[in-house]
């Protein structure tokens, strides 16, 4: 059927395209279904995987150091197990046997680095013993589980005299002992490690008197995987609520079904693509696909609402209504999808692999909405039976519409305009005041991924309280030549470094090669405390090292110093990883290194969890402002092309910038820091927030062409597009807010944060945007007021 009825001249091509899509519906449908089927097949193969390496900014100097030395000196992938007794001390036959067997169990967990297990029950933790003939031997603290009370007493004596044990892996009150194990980064299987630690290290040894606590990054991700199953409950409940909400809005099951098809097809394309390019879903980022699907559904609701409106306007002609709704909403929908996709794509600039993967996959997923929403939309409507006229009439005259009309009336009154402008000004000023407290990195001591009362964070807190600090910061002392670590000045500088940084309140304790040499020297001199110093000559130091390390294989000694004595490390154990603390510790390290140069070696920052988090935080600071600027700038450029106006972007972005300030203030007040996980979500919020404004501005332009009056056009836009925007905002907020029920605190808080983002940007688009337009009468809208007149004159001239 040709377009043989009156259509707006500048949209004739879109009307033609809509009509052709219906005409060619069968081949288009077959092609789309085949491609969707293939993507659906690929999507089914998708797995949930988190890779710690992907969370790190690989180009940062700290991460390069971490990658280079984590295999020998230990990395960020430590699991710390603490056995704590309620009554008595750990020095009983039963408790020491437990520690020994737990250590054996830990040594058999998949992926463990066998040379980087620390426990009084492990061969690598040694003490010096004077043997017959006055020779010294470095022997393991426990060679076997104690067989008698005498052996227990001997172990107690050894522990209390070993600087590398007492206070470090056995608490000063003798009630707790640590088993610390480092895992090989390439063999991190979080689920398996989680299960094996439970079955081999925790379950068999916990009883009424002995409590076992487990912390560390692999354990944390194990919990995250365990809680990832929440997503299915959230999916099911949200789906059902959304279906009911849409049914209540449209009074028709087609209104529930159609947006679902859009979301489903986009999800298949998105997830299939993720699998095809060899990536996986990250359990910490599950809220993102959910948000994208919700966004797809929102676009579909707009289209469905417009279809019903056009159905009545077009004299109940289904095909004309389909084509009209397609053509009239093409610009705001397409612009919305493109701004969403490009807004997300700027995340690619952050040099963190996980964020770059997210940027690529989310952009593709969002672009897939163009297929499901725009290409298939006219075809699906054509296949579905036309809605009953009474439903359309009922919807147009229903309670919801009346409420929107009432609100619009109040908003556009003089008092409403004054309250709107005044209210937003105050909100922004208050937001600016509070957002000063926004922190980069984690603002809390516990892991922000899980709730404070979660088993993981409870364990983490218990271990921190018993040992003062368990999160390592590894500073590598890189020698210029072999035997550099035997240089007295090098060792003294390392020791000075320890004493300097230990004054920081966030540092619990530290350990380096200097501690070993001092302890060995003291034992060598009949335990005289005055000999617990670093000797003055290379030869003495070399001799002491020989005594300590001679009984150990290089694989064991490598965790302290490399076999050629070129490189060693100073490890500080921090009490927490709060962003402010990390920043201060790293600043102190840099100051010390600058003021204390070594002749034979150089300090290199920094490995361990604190080191890589410092790198991530520094990258976030570097990229946060840039990303926000580029996010807004990209949207402005798209708006420039869409509406051919420089000022249009200012009107649409103004409410979004205000929303961003308020959301940042909310984050600051509620202790949510900007970190690798929160950064993309805020950026996505900016991209998605613009969509509401696009639908309203497009409708104002459309109406002013017919009515020629700005006030009436704005009123009409708010009660038509604004009504659909209100409903989509409600559905978006409901679907994201439901994530607050997740056990994963990160997802729960991000769900809440995004719901707030959507809520504030919706209120901005429904109040601030129209009032700004009414107050300043922008040229890009006002020039359209004479459209009908101009068109009529042009037609008359053509006829003449």
């Amino acid at each position, binding site marked *: 059927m040709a377009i043989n009825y009156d259509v707006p001249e500048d949209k004739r091509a879109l009307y033609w395209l809509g009509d052709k899509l219906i005409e060619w519906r069968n081949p288009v449908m077959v092609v789309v279904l085949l491609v969707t089927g293939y993507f659906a097949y690929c999507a089914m193969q998708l797995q949930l995987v988190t890779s710690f390496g992907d969370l790190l900014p690989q180009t940062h100097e700290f991460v390069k150091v971490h990658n280079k030395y984590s295999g020998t000196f230990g990395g960020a992938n430590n699991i710390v197990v603490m056995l704590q007794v309620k009554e008595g001390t750990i020095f009983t036959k039963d408790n020491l046997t437990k520690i020994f067997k737990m250590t054996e169990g830990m040594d058999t967990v998949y992926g463990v680095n066998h040379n980087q297990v620390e426990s009084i029950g492990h061969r690598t933790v040694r003490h010096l013993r004077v043997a017959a003939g006055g020779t010294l031997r470095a022997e393991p603290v426990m060679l076997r589980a104690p067989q008698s009370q005498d052996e227990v007493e001997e172990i107690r004596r050894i522990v209390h005299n070993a600087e590398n044990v007492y206070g470090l892996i056995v608490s000063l009150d003798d009630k707790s002992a640590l088993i610390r194990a480092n895992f090989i980064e390439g063999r991190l299987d979080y689920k398996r490690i989680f299960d094996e630690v439970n079955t081999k290290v925790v379950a068999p040894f916990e009883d009424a008197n002995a409590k076992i606590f487990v912390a560390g990054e692999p354990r944390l991700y194990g919990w995250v995987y365990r809680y990832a199953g929440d997503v299915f409950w959230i999916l099911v409940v949200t789906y059902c609520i959304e279906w009911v909400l849409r049914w209540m809005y449209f009074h028709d099951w087609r209104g529930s079904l159609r947006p679902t098809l859009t979301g489903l097809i986009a999800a298949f394309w998105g997830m299939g693509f993720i699998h095809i390019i060899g990536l996986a879903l990250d359990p910490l980022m599950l809220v993102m696909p959910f948000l994208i699907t919700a966004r797809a559904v929102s676009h579909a609701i707009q289209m469905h609402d417009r279809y019903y409106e056009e159905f009545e306007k077009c004299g109940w002609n289904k095909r004309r209504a389909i084509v009209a709704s397609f053509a009239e909403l093409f610009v705001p929908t397409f612009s919305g999808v493109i701004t969403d996709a490009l807004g997300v794509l700027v995340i690619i600039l952050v040099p963190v692999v996980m964020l770059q993967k997210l940027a690529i996959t989310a952009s593709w997923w969002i672009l897939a909405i163009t297929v499901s929403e725009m290409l298939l939309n006219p075809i699906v409507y054509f296949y579905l039976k036309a809605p*009953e006229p009474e439903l359309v009439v009922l919807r147009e005259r229903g309670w919801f519409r009346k409420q929107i009309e009432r609100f619009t009336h109040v908003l556009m009154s003089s008092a409403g305009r004054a309250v709107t402008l005044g209210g937003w000004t105050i909100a922004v000023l208050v937001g600016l005041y509070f957002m000063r407290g926004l922190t980069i990195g984690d603002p809390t001591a516990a892991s922000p991924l899980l709730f404070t009362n979660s088993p993981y964070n409870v364990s983490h807190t218990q271990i921190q309280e018993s040992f003062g600090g368990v999160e390592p910061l590894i500073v590598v002392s890189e020698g210029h030549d072999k035997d550099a670590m035997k240089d007295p000045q090098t060792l003294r500088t390392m020791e000075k470094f320890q004493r300097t940084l230990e004054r920081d309140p966030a540092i619990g304790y530290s350990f380096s090669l200097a501690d070993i040499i001092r302890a060995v020297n003291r034992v060598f001199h009949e335990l005289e405390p005055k000999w617990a110093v670093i000797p003055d000559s290379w030869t003495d130091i070399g001799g002491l090292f020989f005594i300590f390390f001679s009984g150990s294989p290089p694989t064991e000694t490598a965790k302290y110093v490399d076999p050629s004595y070129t490189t060693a490390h100073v490890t500080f154990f921090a009490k927490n990883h709060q962003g402010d603390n990390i920043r201060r510790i790293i600043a102190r390290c840099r100051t010390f290194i600058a003021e204390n140069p070594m002749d034979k070696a150089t300090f290199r920052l920094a490995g361990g969890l604190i080191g890589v988090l410092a790198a991530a935080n520094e990258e976030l600071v570097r990229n946060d402002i840039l990303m926000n600027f580029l996010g807004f700038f990209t949207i402005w450029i798209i708006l420039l092309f869409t509406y051919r106006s420089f000022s249009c972007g200012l009107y649409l972005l103004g409410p979004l910038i205000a929303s961003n300030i308020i959301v940042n203030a909310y984050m600051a007040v509620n202790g949510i820091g900007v970190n690798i996980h929160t950064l993309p979500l805020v950026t996505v919020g900016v991209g998605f927030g613009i969509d509401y404004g696009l639908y309203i501005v497009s409708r104002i332009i459309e109406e002013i062409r017919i009515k020629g009056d700005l006030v009436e056009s704005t009123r009409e836009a708010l009660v038509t597009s604004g009504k659909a925007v209100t409903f989509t905002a409600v559905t978006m907020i409901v679907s994201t807010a439901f994530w607050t029920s997740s056990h994963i605190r990160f997802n729960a808080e991000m769900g809440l944060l995004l719901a707030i983002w959507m809520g504030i940007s919706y209120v901005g688009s429904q109040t601030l945007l129209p009032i700004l337009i009414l107050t300043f009468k922008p040229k890009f809208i006002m020039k359209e007021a004479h459209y009908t007149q101009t068109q009529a004159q042009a037609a008359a001239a053509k006829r003449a």
Partner: protein
Amino acid sequence: MELNLYTSAAIVLGFSFLVVGLDEYVAKPWRKARWEKRAASGDKEAQEMLRIAQSAHVVDE
């Protein structure tokens, strides 16, 4: 109870069919009867709505 991909898909599919069935065979007839009853009792809004709906000539090609 723990859900997985397949049990979730089954639940949402079942729920969708339930909504479609309830809408077609329960809600719509009930709504129509309610409007007719209101129109018969002299409700102007209901009469107007029914008039528009009945006079509408749907072109569903």
